[in-house]
Structure formats: structure tokens, C-alpha cells
């Protein structure tokens, strides 16, 4: 790989670029294209208008105006789009970036300063991009005698685990989720269990004392807060009878569960703060005790990746709180669809004599609708996907609620000091577990008193 | 007492002149000490709130123990080491204060002694030695460590005679001696 900074010469620079290009082209030709062709044998290709969409066909249709909408819709409903863009990585990374900006500005306002101010002219909105550029141009220093494969892998795995967590989060009605699992909640617990392991692995591989203590602290944090985290959600599962996150959201169409189980919500919120390693529970990174905890040896972009992963995780936890306790995307629909007759038949407009001379039919207001009746069909449960209005409305509600929860996650950083590890263990084992048991019995009481459940009042 | 001729008082102290205006309160506790250690201690001055007695270095522990037991002085505020190359001596001055007795809280009793000085110091292994007062006034611990590295006075009985402020690789003279010259000055 070429090195730009010392002894920069344009010829070497260009040679480096061309070398890289050459190798990229060679590798793509020799390995990439065969791999794609082999994959095409096994991947089911979408059928549009009775034709199998091959790559050649898609390229042709790009220049055909009438076929572009179906093409885009096909892309929108493909798995790749879900993983890379909308409910998956891109959406979560966007919210994570917003979270970092909001955190900086909010803390600054709380602490009587201005925060990022110059970069990007408007309130330092490009500061994050600047920080990213700075991090990516820093040298990555690997400590001597470190376990190099593990040490390199830890930040990548951290981002990957956070992304796997994001994959389980439904953000809009109609299956807008990367992985719609029957046991979504259990999968969430499984993914959460990865983070301390990654922390310990990276801490162990760095061969340094401060990361090591930080990793052990992360382990203790998991030990004390995983059980309250799991038990605090059991109440909701008892009331809904399902582990599927989308169904948990749909069960809250009339009221969110936080009304009936505020104790569970509080316990979950505190356990969430601890799992996110945020102040007051940022013991694995306590900078005045153990320099930066398990992040001490990370430099440059590796540190940036860990930060990205932790903010993705922050978004995922806030979204989980919204889904389970605050009703997810449920809320009043913005711009409700027009009446069915208006879409299907149109409104006859009479002249002064009363004779219908004109029929006004709206164009398909739902932007992505195939036919005008789509919303009606979706209401009747005959369509697998949702209409544009419900999608937009659901996403807006979801984002609003998530941002609210993120705000409350960020707030303690300006209010509380850090707690100590024995206090943390004491809180987890003596208080939160007891409270989550109380929460379970509240749920059982609600079921057996006939308030909620089959044949219940609500 | 055998070393009486080796420790001449550096200057002719004028105790008579001071005693004319000496404050009675300060004189009372100084008299306590001088009565007990008649010829081992020598009063240098008695001023308002400030008193100083010079003690021979063999007697420093006894005098300090006597002060600790019989007067309200309970801690050492400061320990000053002074180099006197003309006298071939190094002076060590303990400033004692009292927290417990409100009447004595203004007073600072300077307990001074002198140890022989060597031209080519080898800190810890030469004759520049003094008994540590750490067992009596605990608070002199770090001060004595500082004097050990800065002036080369080894404190016998001090449990922790290590470097405190100077770097580990310091190999020069003890820097507060007068023959260590400031560079550029």
C-alpha cells in the first residue's frame, strides 16, 4: 500500500493508485465475476411483468421511463436494500450520526458552552465528518505482543454485532424489518450477549493492563445487568404471548405497555444504560481510573469503528425500548388516505343542472402503490407490504419516539457522576432483580384479574 | 558533648538582647526545654510567636520526644535543610506547630540541628547522617526524603529513604548544596 504523507511525490502517488486499480480489476475479473455468476444460479430473481429480471434486463429498463417505478419498487423490496439502507445499516448509521451531533450540542447547552460551532457553518453540523476524516487519516498503532488477528477483528466484530442487533428492529408496519423472527426477543438477548465477549476479547488481546481491567469490568457489568434486562421484558411477553417484535408492537395499537408496567420500563431503562456503558455506568471506560478502559489501545479508525458500533447499539436499544414499551410506530396516521370511492371510482362532479359531466379520480396518492386499492387491500390483510402513507407515518412516529428515548439516554451524562463497581453490582442484584420480579407479578395479576388477555376487559 | 568543639555556634547569638523584650508565654515553654536539657540545647532566639532552639545532633531525638510528650506541639510543618559550606555543616531545621492547643496555635517552634558535611558527598554512605524524627513527628516523612535527595543528609531510622522529587537517573551533587551551581547564572 502506498504512503502519502512522508516524501510525497506525484509519480509515486499515481503509481499507487494505478497499482491498486490494477489489482482491483484483476481480482474482480478473476474472483468477483465468477462468484456473482455462481450466486445467480442460486438466488431467486424477481419477476416483473412476467419477465425474470436479469442484470441485462435491469440495465435496459433503466432507460425505459415506464419500467423505472417497478424497478425501483423491486429494489426497495429486496433484501439488499433492507440490509444496507432503510431499516438496516444506513438508517441506523444516520440516526447514530444525528445522535452524536445532538449529544454534543445538548451537553454543551447543559454545560453553558456552545459545542461544535465552526465546522459546516451551521452550528458545527459537519464536525462529525471532520472527526471521521481525522480518525481515518491517523496511524493505527498495534501494541507489541498483542494478539493481532483478535485485535484487528474486535472493532469490526463490534460494529457487526451492533448491526445484527439493528437487523432485529422493526421500524414500520408491514414487515419493514431486516429479519422478522418468531423469537425476535430471544435473538436480541443472544446478540446482546456478544458485546461483553467482544470487549473481553479485545481487552485480552491488547496485552496491556488498563484494557484488561476494563474488560473485566465490562464482564461484571454484564453479570449484574443482564438478568434484570431479561426479566424486565418478561412482563410484556406474558401479556402479549409472543416473542415476535412486530407482533409486540401491533399489540399496542390502543395503548403502550408502559402504562401497565412502568416498573419494568424503568428497570429496562437502567439496565439499558448499563449495557450501553454510558455515564453513570461507563465503568469499562472510566477515564479517570483506568485510562480509557478497554479502548485504551485503540487508535485511529479502530477507535472510530468502536464508537460507530456503540452508537449503533445506542440506537438499537432505544428502538427496542420504543418497540416494547412505547408502542413502536403506532400513532395517528399523517395524511390519512383518501376515501375508497375517491380512489376507485372517482367523484362525479355535476354541472348546474345536476348532470354528471366530469369524474375526478385522484392519481395514486400512495406513492409506491401498485394499484389504487392497495391501501384498502392492506387494511384487509391481503397485501404483504404497506402503503406509502402508513410507512411514512409509522417511520415518523418511530423516529420521534426513538429520538425521545435517546434524549433520555444522553441526559444522565450531564447530570450524574460515575458510580463504582460494587455499587453497580449491588444495584443490579439487590434492587433491579427484585423490581423485575415485581413487574412479572404485576403482569400475572393483570392476566388473571381479567384485565388483559383473552376475554379481558381491554 | 564530646563533639562540642566541632559544633561551634555559627554566629554569636545575642540572647540577652532578645530576652529583654522576650514574650513571657514563649519563654515559658522554651524554659521547659532548656531546664530539662540544660547544656544540650541552646536558645537562638525567642520572638513573638517564633522561637528557635539549636540542638546537638545526638540529642535531636530526645529533645523531639520531650517536646512531643510535654508540650502541645504535635506536628512538623516544615523541615528546612541549609548548607553551610564555610562551617562544613548542613543545618536541618524542623518547624513544629500545634493543632490541638488553641493557645499554641500561633507558635512555631524551630528545632534546629547540624550535621557534618563532606566535600565529596556519597549520600547514604558518608558521615552526613541524622536520626530520623519520623517515629515522633510522623509528618516529617516526605520532608526528610526531600532533604535526603536535595542535600544528601541520610536519616537513620527512616523506613523509606528513596528519591522523591529528583529523577531516578540523577547522578550529580545533591542540588541544594551551595557548590552545585545553577547553569547560566
Amino acid at each position, binding site marked *: 500500500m502506498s504512503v502519502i504523507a512522508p516524501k510525497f511525490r506525484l509519480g509515486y502517488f499515481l503509481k499507487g493508485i494505478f497499482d491498486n486499480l490494477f489489482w482491483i480489476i484483476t481480482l474482480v475479473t478473476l474472483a468477483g465475476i465468477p462468484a456473482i455468476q455462481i450466486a445467480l444460479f442460486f438466488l431467486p430473481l424477481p419477476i416483473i411483468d412476467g419477465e425474470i429480471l436479469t442484470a441485462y434486463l435491469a440495465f435496459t429498463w433503466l432507460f425505459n421511463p415506464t419500467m423505472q417505478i417497478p424497478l425501483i419498487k423491486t429494489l426497495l423490496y429486496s433484501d439488499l436494500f433492507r440490509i444496507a439502507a432503510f431499516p438496516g445499516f444506513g438508517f441506523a448509521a444516520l440516526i447514530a450520526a444525528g445522535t452524536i451531533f445532538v449529544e454534543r450540542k445538548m451537553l454543551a447547552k447543559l454545560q453553558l458552552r456552545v459545542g461544535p460551532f465552526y465546522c459546516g457553518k451551521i452550528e458545527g453540523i459537519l464536525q462529525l465528518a471532520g472527526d471521521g476524516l481525522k480518525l481515518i487519516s491517523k496511524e493505527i498503532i498495534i501494541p507489541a505482543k498483542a494478539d493481532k488477528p483478535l485485535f484487528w477483528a474486535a472493532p469490526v466484530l463490534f460494529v457487526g454485532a451492533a448491526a445484527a442487533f439493528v437487523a432485529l428492529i422493526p421500524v414500520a408496519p408491514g414487515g419493514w424489518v431486516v429479519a422478522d*423472527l*418468531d423469537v425476535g426477543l430471544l435473538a436480541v438477548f443472544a446478540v446482546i450477549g456478544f458485546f461483553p465477549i467482544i470487549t473481553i476479547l479485545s481487552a485480552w488481546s491488547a496485552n496491556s493492563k488498563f484494557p484488561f481491567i476494563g474488560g*473485566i469490568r465490562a464482564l461484571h457489568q454484564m453479570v449484574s445487568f*443482564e438478568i434484570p434486562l431479561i426479566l424486565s421484558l418478561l412482563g410484556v411477553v406474558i401479556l402479549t404471548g409472543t416473542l415476535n417484535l412486530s407482533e409486540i408492537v401491533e399489540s399496542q395499537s390502543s395503548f403502550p405497555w408502559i402504562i401497565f408496567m412502568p416498573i419494568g420500563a424503568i428497570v429496562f431503562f437502567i439496565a439499558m444504560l448499563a449495557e450501553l456503558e454510558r455515564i453513570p455506568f461507563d465503568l469499562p471506560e472510566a477515564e479517570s481510573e483506568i485510562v480509557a478502559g478497554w479502548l485504551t489501545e485503540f487508535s485511529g479508525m479502530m477507535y472510530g469503528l468502536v464508537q460507530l458500533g456503540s452508537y449503533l447499539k445506542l440506537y438499537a436499544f432505544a428502538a427496542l425500548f420504543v418497540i416494547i414499551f412505547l408502542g413502536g410506530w403506532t400513532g395517528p396516521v399523517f395524511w390519512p388516505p383518501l376515501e375508497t370511492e375517491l380512489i376507485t371510482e372517482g367523484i362525479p362532479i355535476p354541472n348546474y343542472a345536476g348532470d354528471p359531466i366530469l369524474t375526478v379520480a385522484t392519481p395514486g396518492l400512495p406513492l409506491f402503490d401498485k394499484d389504487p386499492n392497495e391501501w384498502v387491500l392492506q387494511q384487509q390483510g391481503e397485501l404483504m407490504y404497506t402503503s406509502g402513507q402508513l410507512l411514512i407515518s409509522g417511520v415518523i412516529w418511530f423516529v420521534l419516539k426513538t429520538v425521545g428515548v435517546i434524549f433520555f439516554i444522553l441526559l444522565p451524562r450531564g447530570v450524574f457522576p460515575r458510580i463504582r463497581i460494587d455499587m453497580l453490582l449491588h444495584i443490579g442484584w439487590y434492587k433491579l432483580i427484585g423490581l423485575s420480579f415485581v413487574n412479572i407479578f404485576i403482569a400475572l395479576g393483570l392476566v388473571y384479574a381479567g384485565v388483559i388477555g383473552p376475554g379481558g376487559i381491554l | 558533648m564530646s563533639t562540642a568543639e566541632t559544633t561551634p555556634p555559627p554566629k554569636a547569638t545575642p540572647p540577652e538582647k532578645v530576652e529583654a523584650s522576650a514574650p513571657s508565654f514563649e519563654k515559658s515553654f522554651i524554659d521547659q526545654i532548656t531546664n530539662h536539657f540544660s547544656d544540650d540545647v541552646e536558645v537562638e532566639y525567642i520572638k513573638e510567636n517564633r522561637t528557635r532552639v539549636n540542638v546537638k545532633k545526638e540529642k535531636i531525638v530526645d529533645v523531639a520526644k520531650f517536646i512531643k510528650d510535654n508540650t502541645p506541639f504535635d506536628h512538623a510543618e516544615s523541615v528546612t535543610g541549609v548548607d553551610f559550606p564555610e562551617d562544613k555543616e548542613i543545618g536541618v531545621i524542623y518547624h513544629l506547630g500545634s493543632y490541638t492547643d488553641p493557645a499554641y496555635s500561633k507558635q512555631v517552634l524551630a528545632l534546629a540541628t547540624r550535621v557534618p558535611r563532606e566535600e565529596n558527598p556519597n549520600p547514604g554512605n558518608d558521615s552526613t547522617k541524622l536520626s530520623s524524627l519520623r517515629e515522633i513527628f510522623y509528618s516529617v516523612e516526605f520532608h526528610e526524603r526531600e532533604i535526603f535527595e536535595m542535600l544528601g543528609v541520610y536519616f537513620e531510622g527512616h523506613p523509606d529513604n528513596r528519591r522523591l522529587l529528583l529523577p531516578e537517573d540523577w547522578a550529580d551533587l545533591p542540588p541544594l548544596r551551595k557548590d552545585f551551581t545553577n547553569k547560566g547564572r
Partner: protein
Amino acid sequence: MVGESVASYSNVLLMFGFACAAMIPALIISRMISPENKKQPNPVKTLPMECGQVPSGAGRTHFMMQYYAYVLMFVIFDVMAIFLYAWGSSLLDLPRTATLPIIAFLGIMFAAMAFALNLSKRKDIW
């Protein structure tokens, strides 16, 4: 509506793989454009962080935190907490009498936890 196939499970893996694959270029680009003197590597620079001092002792050592009783309890009760989900998710389909054994189970679990906490506190293990 509910995803039932292996495909929905594999989506989690796909997302995991996508994030990993998307992050590796960041590291590679960082390696490409960052200044690094490969010919004369600085051995001091790669020392483990020890607050500016030369590190003493190994980083990976025998190190014991005092709170191991909590860890032992975690091993037991974490599994039990997951067991409860099997019951909780099907509670509405079960007859009401099926709840009594579970409540007994909860009681035993809670009592055991209280006993363990009490014991370890009395023994002053941490």
C-alpha cells in the same frame, strides 16, 4: 406475515456480514492514507499504554476480581431467566393451573437468589 423460514434467520447473519464487510474498507483506507514509517518502526510507540512509563509485568496475568460470587450466581440464574420466556410466551394458551408450578419455580428461584446474596454478604466475600 411472520417470517418462518431460515431466510429470516440468515438475514441477521447477512446484516452482520454486511456491516463487517463495510467496515473493513475503512480500516484498509486508513492503512493506505495514514502516515506510517515502515522502514524505521519505533519500538517505543508500540509499547502497551502504561501512562508514559516502561511497562512492568505482563498485561495478561492472573488477575482476580473480588466479586466472583456474583459471577457464579449469574451462571445459574441467567439460564433460569431465559427458561421463563418459554413459559411466558405461551402463558395465554396454557390452562390457569399451569401457572402454579411456575410460581413455585419463581419462588424457589427468588429464595435461592436471596439466600445466595445473603450468604455471600455475610461471608463478606467481596
